[in-house]
């Protein structure tokens, strides 16, 4: 656990020092929400049915962008190799990177939920919706953390991450959008979709934990 926390603390410190990547992801997400709010306000009187899609599209693209940037820096500086050379198992490294990624992503998502609450005049910070957002984030952060390691060079990695991540994330996105809609009272019951989201989060986390040591082998 000591090594996992060492990786988490180091990654959060780096995220704070090298704020550019995360700030860009946050700025992209904020601008997207802002544009959506004005566009939908002009087009329709009821924006609520559109909210789940808006939220998850924004979360996902911001997350994929931020995950790619983090691994690119590690690869360029050779520090990912330095971690692999240490006696720590790749699984521990993966868990550390996943936890730090989750903390940073959830911070961005909370800020976005607050912004969306104001812009769309809809109470979004409910315990139910927060749980759905955290489950969905765990699901996609696991996959993007795993896929972020693939590819032999930064350019390959930059292409592989979105190309491979987005199709794999379709089931999670559908479940997340439906569960979010259910929690907002748009689509009716949200329980089966939340369950599917939880299953996806569990599956993607376990799959990533198992595959990560193989993915970093050369």
């Amino acid at each position, binding site marked *: 656990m000591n090594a996992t926390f*060492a990786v988490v603390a180091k990654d959060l410190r780096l995220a704070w020092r090298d704020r550019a990547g995360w700030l860009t992801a946050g700025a992209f997400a904020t601008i997207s929400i802002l544009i959506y709010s004005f566009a939908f306000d002009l087009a329709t009187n009821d924006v609520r049915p559109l909210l789940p899609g808006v939220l998850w599209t924004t979360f996902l693209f911001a997350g994929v962008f931020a995950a790619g940037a983090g691994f690119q820096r590690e690869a360029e500086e050779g520090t990912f190799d*330095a971690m692999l*050379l240490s006696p720590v198992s790749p699984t521990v490294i993966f868990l550390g990177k996943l936890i730090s990624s989750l903390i940073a992503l959830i911070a961005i998502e909370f800020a976005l939920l607050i912004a969306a609450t104001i812009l769309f005049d809809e109470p979004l910070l409910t315990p139910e919706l927060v749980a759905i957002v955290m489950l969905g984030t765990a699901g996609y952060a696991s996959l993007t953390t795993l896929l972020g390691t693939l590819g032999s060079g930064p350019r390959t990695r930059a292409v592989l991450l979105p190309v491979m991540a987005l199709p794999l994330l379709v089931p999670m996105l559908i479940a997340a959008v439906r569960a979010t809609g259910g929690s907002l009272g748009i689509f009716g019951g949200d329980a089966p979709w939340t369950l599917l989201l939880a299953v996806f989060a569990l599956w993607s986390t376990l799959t990533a934990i198992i595959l990560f040591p193989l993915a970093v082998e050369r």
Partner: protein
Amino acid sequence: MSDAAPLAIDTRALTRRYAGVDVVRDVTVRVPAGRKVALTGSNGAGKTTLLSLLSTLVQPTSGEAWIAGRSLGERSAALRRSLGVLRHSPMLYEALSPLENLEFFARLYHVPDAATRIEELLRLLGLWRRRHEPASILSRGTHQRLSIARALVHRPAVLLLDEPETGLDPEGIALLDELMLRAPGVTVLAATHRVDRIEAWADGVIRLDRGRVAEDTVSASVPHAGARA
């Protein structure tokens, strides 16, 4: 000369193929513990790939190898704890300070009394005054000094070094000799193009040519059977 010390590095027909080309081919070498060996050869001879194989970063296509008696195939924590590695890339976090870099790697290696060890290395390498500055503003030579500290923080028994003199001034090279290349009891395998310096620290040479061992003054002195620890 026969060398009865246990083997620190022992490879049998180690081969690594990339895109159909054997970059390292049938390399069999035996380096007793405590020896200082220069790994030479022209560009593309396979030095860096051999060091990557021995450091467990790259898997062999075929063949076997042991470091301090532990098979590379096991990729055990004990094996990696016994290795100190310097590569072309400094392998440092540019946004972290020298102190933060070493603290992080000391935690990964579970270094006992890490604060004392880190202070000792930073002072020895002349980095103590700059310990809080971001690594990104350090010069190439200072980076290399910090890389040396990173590789030594866990007191490894076997050092795998790739062009360790890169960027170092004469004072830095003297420190490299003292802390790594001539460190008592530590086994060194160092790739180098500084042929003029080999006599100053090495007691053996392994020369590679197109992936194969072309010259080996070390293994010949080691008994073949039963020498592996």
